[in-house]
C-alpha cells in the first residue's frame, strides 16, 4: 500500500467502526466492542507501519474540499516525524485502553455507546495528528471536544458526570473561540493556514496570532485559567480518563503548539512559558489535598501538561534576533519527549487506578483503600513503576524527559528552573502519598479487604505500558525514524549536567521522603491533622478558580444578561416590534369605524373620496 492509502486506512478505520456501531450495533455491546477494538488494532498496526517506515513514509498530500471564489479549504495529511511520534503514542495507548475497556466496561449497560465513543474519539484525534492546515485541525479539534463530552457523559443518568461534561465542553469552547480567532487572523495576515506554507517563512510575525492560537491549547490542554474542567472530567469512565484526559487529547494542545512553532515570537513564548509554569505549580499544590485516586492523577496530569507547555515556551527565550527556528525547536523536542513518556506512564497509572477501582468495587477514596499491594500484585508492580517514572526515578522514562526540561530551564531562566524543581518536589510528594495510602498498610474498608486482581484484559495493558514506561526514556532505543523530533531534545553536558542531575534526584528524594514520613496509612489525611491551616489553604486554592467563575457567572454575567434583557424588552420588543404593531393596529381601528354596514353611508365616503381627489387634483394643497 502507498503511504497515503495507509494513512487513510489509519484515519478512516475508527470512523467506519463508529458509524457501524452507531447505525447497526447499538444494542449489541459485545459485537460493538469487537468492532471498536479491531479498528484500534488497525490504527496501531497501520500507524506503526507508517511511523516506523522512515523517510519513505513521510509525505504531505491534500485535496480541495471547499472552493469559494479564490478561497479554498483543503483537507490534507502532513506526515512528518512529529506526526509519526504522536501517531505511535495514540495508536499504542489507544489499543491498551480498548483492551482495558473490554474488562472494565464488561458489565456496562451502554457498552455499545461507550465503544462507539472511543472510536469516534480515535478518528478525531488522528485527524488532529494528520491535519496539514489549521482549519482542518480546528474541525477535528471540535470533534475531540465532542467525543470528550460524549465519554465524560457516559453515565449521564447521574448528575455529576452530566454537569462535568457540560463544564468541559463550555471551558473548551472558551479556548476554542480564541483558537478560531487565531486561525482567522493567521489567514488574514499570512494568506494561508497551510502548515507547510507557514513553515516556509515569509510570515507576518505578531504577538497576537500565536497567543490566540495558544488559547486553543489553554482550553484543550487545561492550562490556567481554563484548567477547571479537567479534574471534573474524572467523572467519566477510568479508561476514558487514561486515553483522553491523560495521554492523548489533552496533549493535543502541546502537539498543536509544536505544529505552529514557526509562528512564535519571543513575547508570546514568554507568556506561554509562564502559563505552563503557573499551571504546573498550581496543579501540584492542589494534588496534595485530594482524596480521590483519580483526582490526584488528574491534577498530576495538569501539572505535567504545565511542564510541557513551559518546556515549549522555554525553547526560544533568546530568539529575539538570532537563529529563530533552531531555538524554538529545542522546546519542541523537550515538550514532545515529555509528552511521549508522560503518555505512557500516565496512561499506565490511570489504567492502574482503574484496575484498583474495579478491584475495590468502585471505591475511589484512597483513605478507604490500603494494603492492596498483596491483593493486586500486578497492578501494584506496574503502578509503582508509573509512580517512579513520574517522580523522575533514575533510569525510568520520566527521569530523562523531565531532566531535559529542567536542563532547558536551567540554561534559559533560573527562576523557572527553581519553580519547576519545586513542582518536582511536590510531584514526588503527592505521588508517593497516593502510592503509600493505596497500596501499603492494611485495608481500611471492606471493599479494599476484598479487593482482587481483574482478568487478563485488565492486567495485560498494564504490563505493556509498564514496559514502555521503563524503556520509553531511552531515545537510543527508538527506531531512528523520529529523529526529526528527538534530535532536538536538549542534552546537558559537563557541570550543567551534574547540577541538573543532582537537583532532579535531590528534589525527588526530598519529596518522596517527606511523603513517606508524613503520611500514615490512616483513614484520614495526616496533613489535615498536623497542619489544618495549610490543608485548608490548599483546598481553598483548589476551589479558588471555581468560586471565581461561579461569582463571575452568577453575579456579573447573569446581571449583565438581565440588564441587556431589560433593554431588549423596552427598546426592541417594546418600541420597535410592538410599536410597529401598535401603529398598524391603530390604523385598523380607525378604518374599521368606516365599515358601518349601510350602503347609503358608503355613498358619503365615496363623496368624500371624490372631494379629496378633487382637492388634490386642483392643487389647493
Amino acid at each position, binding site marked *: 500500500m502507498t503511504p497515503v492509502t495507509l494513512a487513510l486506512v489509519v484515519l478512516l478505520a475508527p470512523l467506519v467502526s463508529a458509524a457501524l456501531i452507531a447505525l447497526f450495533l447499538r444494542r449489541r455491546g459485545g459485537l460493538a466492542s469487537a468492532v471498536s477494538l479491531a479498528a484500534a488494532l488497525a490504527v496501531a498496526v497501520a500507524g506503526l507501519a507508517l511511523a516506523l517506515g522512515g523517510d519513505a513514509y513521510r509525505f504531505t498530500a491534500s485535496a480541495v474540499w471547499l472552493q469559494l471564489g479564490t478561497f479554498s479549504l483543503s483537507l490534507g495529511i502532513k506526515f512528518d516525524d512529529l506526526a509519526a511520534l504522536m501517531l505511535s503514542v495514540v495508536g499504542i495507548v489507544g489499543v491498551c485502553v480498548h483492551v482495558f475497556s473490554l474488562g472494565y466496561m464488561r458489565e456496562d449497560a451502554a457498552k455499545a455507546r461507550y465503544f462507539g465513543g472511543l472510536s469516534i474519539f480515535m478518528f478525531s484525534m488522528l485527524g488532529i495528528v494528520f491535519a496539514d492546515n489549521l482549519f482542518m485541525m480546528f474541525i477535528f479539534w471540535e470533534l475531540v471536544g465532542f467525543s470528550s463530552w460524549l465519554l465524560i457523559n457516559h453515565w449521564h443518568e447521574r448528575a455529576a458526570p452530566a454537569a462535568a461534561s457540560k463544564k468541559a465542553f463550555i471551558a473548551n469552547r472558551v479556548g476554542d473561540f480564541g483558537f478560531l480567532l487565531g486561525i482567522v487572523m493567521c489567514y488574514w495576515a499570512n494568506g494561508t493556514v497551510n502548515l507547510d506554507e507557514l513553515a516556509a517563512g515569509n510570515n507576518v510575525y505578531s504577538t497576537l496570532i500565536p497567543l490566540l492560537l495558544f488559547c486553543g491549547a489553554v482550553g484543550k490542554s487545561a492550562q490556567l485559567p481554563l484548567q477547571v474542567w479537567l479534574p471534573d472530567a474524572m467523572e467519566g469512565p477510568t479508561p476514558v480518563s487514561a486515553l483522553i484526559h491523560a495521554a492523548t487529547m489533552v496533549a493535543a494542545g502541546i502537539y498543536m503548539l509544536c505544529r505552529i512553532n514557526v509562528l512564535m515570537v519571543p513575547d508570546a513564548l514568554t507568556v506561554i512559558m509562564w502559563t505552563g509554569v503557573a499551571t504546573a505549580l498550581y496543579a501540584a499544590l492542589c494534588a496534595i489535598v485530594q482524596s480521590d485516586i483519580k483526582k490526584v492523577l488528574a491534577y498530576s496530569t495538569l501539572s505535567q501538561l504545565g511542564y510541557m507547555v513551559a518546556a515549549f515556551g522555554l525553547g526560544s527565550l533568546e530568539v529575539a534576533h538570532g537563529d529563530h527556528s533552531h531555538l524554538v525547536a529545542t522546546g519542541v523536542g523537550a515538550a514532545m519527549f515529555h509528552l511521549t513518556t508522560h503518555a505512557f506512564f500516565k496512561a499506565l497509572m490511570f489504567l492502574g487506578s482503574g484496575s484498583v477501582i474495579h478491584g475495590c468495587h468502585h471505591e475511589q477514596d484512597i483513605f478507604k483503600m490500603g494494603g492492596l499491594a498483596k491483593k493486586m500484585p500486578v497492578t501494584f508492580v506496574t503502578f509503582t513503576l508509573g509512580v517512579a517514572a513520574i517522580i523522575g526515578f533514575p533510569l525510568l522514562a520520566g527521569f530523562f524527559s523531565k531532566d531535559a526540561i529542567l536542563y532547558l530551564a536551567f540554561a534559559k531562566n533560573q527562576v523557572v528552573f527553581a519553580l519547576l524543581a519545586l513542582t518536582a518536589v511536590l510531584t514526588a510528594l503527592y505521588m508517593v502519598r497516593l502510592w503509600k495510602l493505596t497500596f501499603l498498610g492494611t485495608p481500611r474498608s471492606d471493599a479494599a479487604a476484598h479487593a482482587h486482581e481483574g482478568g487478563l484484559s485488565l492486567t495485560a495493558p498494564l504490563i505493556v505500558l509498564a514496559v514502555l514506561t521503563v524503556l520509553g526514556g531511552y531515545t537510543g532505543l527508538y527506531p531512528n525514524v523520529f529523529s526529526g523530533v528527538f534530535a532536538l531534545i536538549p542534552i546537558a553536558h559537563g557541570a550543567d549536567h551534574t547540577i541538573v542531575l543532582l537537583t532532579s534526584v535531590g528534589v525527588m528524594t526530598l519529596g518522596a521522603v517527606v511523603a513517606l514520613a508524613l503520611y500514615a496509612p490512616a483513614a484520614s489525611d495526616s496533613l489535615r491533622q498536623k497542619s489544618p491551616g495549610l490543608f485548608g489553604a490548599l483546598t481553598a486554592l483548589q476551589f479558588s478558580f471555581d468560586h471565581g467563575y461561579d461569582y463571575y457567572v452568577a453575579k456579573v454575567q447573569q446581571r449583565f444578561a438581565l440588564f441587556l434583557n431589560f433593554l431588549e424588552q423596552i427598546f426592541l420588543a417594546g418600541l420597535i416590534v410592538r410599536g410597529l404593531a401598535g401603529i398598524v393596529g391603530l390604523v385598523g381601528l380607525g378604518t374599521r369605524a368606516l365599515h358601518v354596514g349601510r350602503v*347609503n353611508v358608503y355613498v358619503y365616503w365615496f363623496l368624500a373620496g371624490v372631494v379629496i381627489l378633487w382637492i388634490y387634483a386642483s392643487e389647493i394643497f
Partner: protein
Amino acid sequence: MMTASLNEYVIISALLFMIGFFGVLLRRNTLVVFMSLELMLIASTLALVAFSRFNSTMDGNIFVFFILTVAAAEVAVGLAIIVALYRRRRTVQLDELNSLKH
C-alpha cells in the same frame, strides 16, 4: 317663439343630477336607488347633448351613444341582481341588506 339657451339646459341637467344624487343618498329601496342612479346618468347625457348642439359638433352625441349603450347593459345586469336578491332575501330594503357587517 322663445328658444331655450344653453344655461337652461345645464340648469335642468344639474337639477336632475341633484335629484338622482339625493335619491341615492337618502332612499332605502334598492329599486329607487337604482332609478336615481339612472337619473344621474340621464342628467349627464342631457348636458352632453346640449353642449353638442350649442357647439355644433358631434363629440357630445357620440358620448351619449356610448353612455346609453353601457346604461342599457348595466340596467339589465342591475335589475337581474335585484330580482335575484329579492328571490333570496324577500326584501330589497337597503337597511336589511347588511349581512357583511352583522
